[in-house]
């Protein structure tokens, strides 16, 4: 196995593009190293991106935030401006594993690993985040929803990597929230999860909403019907109920060691409702 730690994105893309056999980007390694130790993957090339300076930065611009692909979840949780603008995204990143895991792991790794139960991903979907992709053919930006394509599979092509995640600027009354269900209090994998992002008008009526669910389908899913159920409302009881119904309807989970179909479908509604309530409050709704 060859290990490389280039200092520029260009060099990293070059290595990946030229690689023969299996090549992996290494960010925090909290998925990749575990899989290597377990003998599930045997990479021929590992490209560590942590020495690439721009990838270690969180930048605030007029159009929002750019979070470098090698920024750890712990670093996100230390960025006051980011917390203020996107509390839901940051709290999702802060739920991954433990303090130790968070000091290594990244939201891009979480996204690329493409687990339906990935914690930061529903929050990123709800936030309308975009992934900045660099590859042999240059740069492209795609919605994060287009990255995961199935459990453990992502849409990146050979030689491509994600350089950063972009979060839009927050305007007016808006808020987001993420909730996951785990039987324990930490160190567990989401059985169901929900991310909600809302923008309200001056009167507190929801004018824009995005709702995403985790662990209820082969990938994290953006549930447009759930968003529709609450747009134009003040998140009253009926709206919440409709939101829950739409969330449950969007579930196509499996029965497995982590939860049953019935349970996941029911709890998806509960979490979507509760996350919406938190997001609504954060947006200044009453």
């Amino acid at each position, binding site marked *: 196995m060859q290990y490389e730690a280039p200092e520029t994105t260009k060099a990293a893309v070059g290595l990946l593009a030229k690689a023969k056999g299996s090549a992996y980007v290494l960010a925090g390694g909290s998925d990749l190293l575990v899989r290597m130790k377990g*003998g599930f993957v045997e990479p021929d090339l590992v490209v560590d991106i942590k020495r690439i300076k721009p990838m270690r930065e969180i930048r605030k611009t007029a159009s929002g935030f750019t979070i470098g692909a090698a920024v750890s979840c712990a670093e996100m949780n230390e960025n006051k401006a980011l917390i203020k603008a996107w509390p839901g995204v940051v709290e999702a990143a802060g739920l991954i594993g433990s303090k130790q895991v968070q000091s290594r792991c990244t939201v891009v790794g979480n996204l690329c690993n493409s687990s339906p139960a990935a914690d930061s991903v529903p929050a990123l979907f709800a936030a309308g985040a975009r992934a900045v992709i660099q590859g042999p053919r240059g740069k492209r930006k795609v919605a994060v929803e287009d990255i995961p394509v199935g459990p453990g599979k992502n849409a990146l092509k050979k030689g491509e990597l994600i350089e950063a995640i972009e979060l839009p600027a927050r305007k007016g009354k808006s808020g987001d929230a993420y909730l996951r*269900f785990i*039987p*324990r*209090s930490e160190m*567990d994998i989401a059985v169901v999860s929900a991310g909600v992002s809302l923008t309200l008008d001056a009167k507190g009526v929801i004018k824009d909403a995005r709702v995403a669910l985790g662990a209820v389908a082969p990938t994290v899913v953006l549930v447009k019907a759930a968003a529709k159920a609450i747009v134009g409302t003040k998140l009253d009881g009926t709206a919440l109920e409709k939101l829950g119904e739409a969330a449950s309807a969007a579930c196509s989970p499996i029965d*497995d060691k982590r939860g049953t179909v019935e*349970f996941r479908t029911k*709890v998806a509604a*509960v979490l979507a409702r509760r996350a919406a309530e938190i997001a609504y409050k954060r947006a200044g709704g009453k």
Partner: protein
Amino acid sequence: MASESTMAHPFEDAPNHVTPTVIHDPVLARTDFKSVGTRPLRPDGLDKVTGRARYGADFSMPGQLVGLVLRSPHAHARIRKIDTSKAEKLPGVKAIVTAADLPDHTGGDQSMYDILENCMARGVAKYDGHAVAAVAAVDAPTARKALKLIKVDYEVLPHVTDVDEAVKPGAPLVNPRLLTEGVEPRPTKPSNIAKRTEFGHGDVDAGFKQADVIVTRSFRTEQTHQGYIEPHACVASVSPDGTGELWVCTQGHFVYRNHCAMLLGMDVSRLRVTSSEIGGGFGGKTHVWAEPVALALSRKANRPVKITMTRDEVFRASGPTSATSIDVRIGARKDGTIVAADATLRFSCGPYYGMWAELGSMTAFACYDLKNVRTVGYEVLVNRPKTAAYRAPSAPMAAFAVESVMDELAHKIGMNEVDFRIKNAARQGTKASYGPVYGPIGIGATLEAAKKHPHMSAPLGKNQGRGMACGFWFNFGGQTCTDINVGPDGSVTLTVGTVDVGGSRASIALCVAEELGVSYEQVKCIVADTGSLGHNDMTDGSRGTFSSSMAGIFAARNAITVLRERAARMWEIPVDDVKWEDGHAKAVGEKYGNLAPLSLKEIAAAAVNTGGPIAGHSEIVADGAGVSFATHIADVEVDPETGRSKILRYTVIQDAGKAVHPAYVEGQYQGGAAQGIGWALNEEYIYGKDGRLQNAGFLDYRIPVCSDLPMIDTQILEIPNPNHPYGVRGVGETSIVPPLAAIANAMSNAFGVRMTHVPMSPPRVLKALEAAKKA
């Protein structure tokens, strides 16, 4: 469990520990302990917190090979052929063993044969994870490669993993030759029921006729694992001269020695076993798995071999506890008197005969004074790993069922659940449901303490409930051999053969310091290898501190006899005129008034001139382990929309006889409760339809993490055990018995639905809540 056979009962001294003939030891009356009851640091503490302590995988030998085990991917399969030829040719592979390298030396001992077959499948793989071959190679990658090159030709057979499915007619037979024991006449057709046992007295049917209220319910508990953090690990080294050494993580190195020697066809004296520090055992390290295989590999390779199980292997192929299915029926009169109690218990054993339902049957009603009681146990074979002991084995499941029904019955007759139990509690002289008559016991006292405890009357919030439950465990004594050697400087080496799992070195040293009249710091307690002491049973049955402190005290008394003789010689007076007091020899009588007392140090310094080294020895069967009782109180909050629960407050009240080191007694109370909470809420083995274990890791086998638990409150009661010089009872196991029931009762009180299936995981709780809503 006793030494030679895993089937011997941990309570085989039952008639003794309930004997009404109290040993009137003058020391028992004493309350003036100087060392006993204090809380000094344990001798292994510093090394453990700094990482210096050596656990099973920390031993290494020059030239050591890496041993890996090939395991069956099938729940049940005939092994037609194992082709190792390709693997053998791989450079770096030094030995491969299969069952053919472990010929049967068990001489008709069925339980040892089962262990042999469990260590390495003989013709049939009986569960997912069953060992079928093993490799020793120069490094791990080579060994892993070799495993892939071994070709096993399996004929997959029908399997059964569920305890209720296994007893249905037509279920696949785990052992097609098995005829149920304990049924008259003996059945002629095989089944998956290995044995039926029955306990009790009185006339249960007549009893139920007197009942005003009867509650009948069925319960299920899923299989759990002890969840010790340290996986099994050992280094084996067999010399061409036929002698061998084994360094291993175990709860009982003498028992491992005896088992391994038998399975390898060696004399016991030719195998020397050294136990490492132990990162948890809880009963799971009372049984050999990889150790005989490591020895066989070393013997074949003529090199030391280390085997360290992965977590996956620990889950799939060590010894979890039983899954159970239990029916309970209890009847009472309106005044709260129980008139009859009946239970049928089906416990899974894995593919081999066990005594797990039997233990459940014996413990089920042990807390109560019952006129008419009956328990029937069925040992059920399934295609799962061979069940091993888990802390008070079988008692938690039985208590879950019985204590749930006790609560329901109390509520039905309109009585407070604590008062109902106090009214029916066993006491001194009660004939236990499993046979013997109790000596002085603590069940009543723990219940009274629970009633008075502030926890019982603390206010509860919305969606919260409080539950309580009682628990019993036999405790065990067993064979114990201990040495005391006084060093030339007067410091004392205390050599024990019981593995220290929970701080017993500190406790035993405290007792010996007490008896000798010296300071705790002057006594260094070590665990010796099997070449250095006579046989010691393993640390199970809560026997470590009970039995080894007893042997330690007797060894100290023998040492004191020697010390008095030496002082007499130094003074040139008759030994009868020398007494031992406060760590000094004192001349008795006016005529010696001017002789200054001799300290242990002074006598030790003179030893070379008075007869040589000073030692005390003791070998005993530590009879009279006092039975143990506890009452627990739990507060639970349940999220009615998700079924998720949280333990808000938890209190353990238990009789310790005498708490030698109260901090470590509290640790045992808290540890057992923590394991019980995990069992109650989330821990379970999950098998797929293919008979394979789905969650062989700590991510999906959910033991509680720190933040899941409240600080567990403890209250130690001291009702002295008359059979121990200081009144000590074992304390290690009873604490895991009540939690399943206490939490189930709390949930039931929180939302009015009786939970009958453990673990009470969120999907199960939510389902029960919804069912109740519909009803």
